[in-house]
């Protein structure tokens, strides 16, 4: 085409581009999509087309369910030298089973927290029981990368050391106020977190999001049945209610047997305080008109 035609084309393109506005954020909308994410997810009972409602992976329902799956995995795999944390939720869906409860199906990726290594992906199913049942969530996971977890050598060394020591080990305030943990206390902190996972799993529902905030103190007890035993006082933080929950645990551990929690008791902070798991989600009340 001739020069005038070429000029016209260039001018049209440039006009069109400058009409788009003086500023554009540089970021590509990536996994944090900017298009139509902000409407609330359709409650399954209103979406008659399919029994499984697709969930937005980074919204809270999928995130809370994924956390429960991680607590479950930690009850099975965490140790004084390893713990599992959520990397991302890739896909999620929710099936409403009526009285039987709510079943979340998740595709998640995991990381090992001590070594900060990638543990690959998992397919997880988390079933929160219906209101009639006062049971813990039920979790099933199929994970590709958990075989990578192998801290047996360090665990054996720790077990030997603690089993043969003359003075029972104890510690407190882990981490301290500044977030510091003495190197010799790190395995005991991880063990506390592994034990806390049992409680966090059991106490979780769709309205909770638990993390362990602190090991207030722990004391080594007599070894029994080839397992080291400890008394632990741990503090959990529930993100949704923002509450700090005090739990006293009896913890058993051996490299061969893993971690178990034969006893767990909640210490309420006031006589009329309730556990977050005991509360039902309050209905939102109508706001006054926004000015």
């Amino acid at each position, binding site marked *: 085409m001739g*020069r*005038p035609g070429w*000029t*016209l084309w*260039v*001018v049209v393109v*440039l006009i069109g*581009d*400058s009409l788009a506005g*003086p*500023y*554009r*954020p*540089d*970021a*590509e*909308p990536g996994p*944090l999509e*900017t298009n139509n*994410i*902000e409407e*609330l997810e359709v409650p399954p009972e209103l979406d008659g087309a399919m029994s499984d409602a697709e969930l*937005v992976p*980074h*919204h*809270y329902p999928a995130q809370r369910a994924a956390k429960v799956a991680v607590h479950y995995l930690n009850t099975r795999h965490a140790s004084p030298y390893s713990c599992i*944390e*959520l990397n991302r939720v890739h896909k999620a869906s929710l099936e409403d089973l009526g009285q039987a409860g709510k079943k979340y199906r998740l595709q998640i990726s995991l990381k090992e*927290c001590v070594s900060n290594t990638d543990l690959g992906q998992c397919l997880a199913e988390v079933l929160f029981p219906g209101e009639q049942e006062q049971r813990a969530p039920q979790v099933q996971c199929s994970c590709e990368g958990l075989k990578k977890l192998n801290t047996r050598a360090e665990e054996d060394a720790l077990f030997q050391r603690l089993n043969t020591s003359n003075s029972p080990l104890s510690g407190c*305030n882990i*981490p*301290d*106020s*500044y*977030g*510091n*943990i003495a190197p010799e206390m790190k395995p005991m902190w991880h063990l506390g977190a592994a034990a806390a996972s049992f409680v966090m799993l059991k106490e979780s529902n769709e309205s909770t999001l638990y*993390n362990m*905030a*602190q090991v207030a103190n722990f004391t080594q007890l007599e070894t029994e049945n080839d397992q080291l035993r400890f008394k632990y006082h741990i*503090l959990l*933080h529930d*993100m*949704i*209610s*923002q*509450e*700090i929950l005090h739990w006293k645990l009896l913890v058993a551990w051996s490299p061969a047997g893993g971690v178990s929690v034969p006893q767990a008791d909640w210490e309420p*902070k*006031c006589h*009329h*305080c309730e556990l977050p798991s005991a509360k039902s989600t*309050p209905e*939102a*009340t*109508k*706001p*006054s008109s*926004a*000015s």
Partner: protein
Amino acid sequence: MSQSIRGILVLLVLAGLGSLGRVGKCAEHRVNYDYFKYHTMAEITGWMEQLEKEHQGVVTIVPYGQTYENRSITLLKISVGSEKKKAIWMDCGIHSREWISPAFCQYFVKQILDTYQTDEKMKQMLSNMDFYITPVLNMDGYVYTWQNITNRLWRKSRSPGNCGDSCMGTDLNRNFDANWGTVGVSRNCCSEVYNGAKELSETEAQAVTSFVLGKRNEIMCFLTIHSYGQLILLPYGHPNVSAPNIDELMSVGVAAAEAIKNVHGMSYTVGTSPNVLYPNSGSSRDWARLIGIPYTFTFELRDKGEHGFKLPEDQIQPTCEEAYEGARSIITYVHDKTFNIPNAASTLIATIWMVLLTLCLTSAPLL
């Protein structure tokens, strides 16, 4: 004999001083101020006074209210030249256990003061806007968290409850006049989200309300800093209320999250509270948006639960560095939009257009 007694006494005194611990230390001289350690309220106050002395005419301490325990709530006003008609608000430490938050405000102030004379963009922004930065809003709570390890996880104010039990404190971020009491709160004084006897029952919330209302036409951007969770939260906390500029807020938030990720690879999730965290009401961010401040964001800094509120000190620096880029991204957008500064790409496009048009007009007849 008396020589050795004197020697022992000297040693004892030195040992005593050494074991005072950080809580007892005097306010450090600003030249040695360690931005990557957590500081007591006294140290932060001393730091503010030092900055005002060292940057006379640029940094002013502005008292704007009182806490329940009668502490003077102060902010740092950063203003180059005469007072500007536009401003940015940032507050930290509304929840006292979130220690990384005041640490970030201090770092943010340091960054502005270290760069406003040399960084062209910062220089330009400070020629058009002032900054109002409150390093610790909930001072009573913050002091309480430093007193004793058992207090470390205190969140609320330190005002007495009025529920007829011994529980005290109100969640300041549920106490603002923004759909107060509608969702995400508890009427139990013992609860961490007790929203107060009524909206603005707390003097700390009153102080922010008064000051910001007095400058409502100047403040374009309201940033409130919390931890933990790695989130950038948009208004509103109520699931049925939408901000009119939610799409724009979303894209600005996403750009900020990208800026954060580019520093140390950390992912921050962007969205409204009801979508990515939980519904809530009475927050300072919601109130600021409701009175018409267009760009209001809550930052939830590191981490995602591994340490939670007790973020280790060796993470203060990377957290502050990434959060600074996120905040700067938002502030730059707000500034450029308000003062019609085209961004670099648009300037280039406009320049090319002008050059081509000139060439064609001078060398060939148009259709």
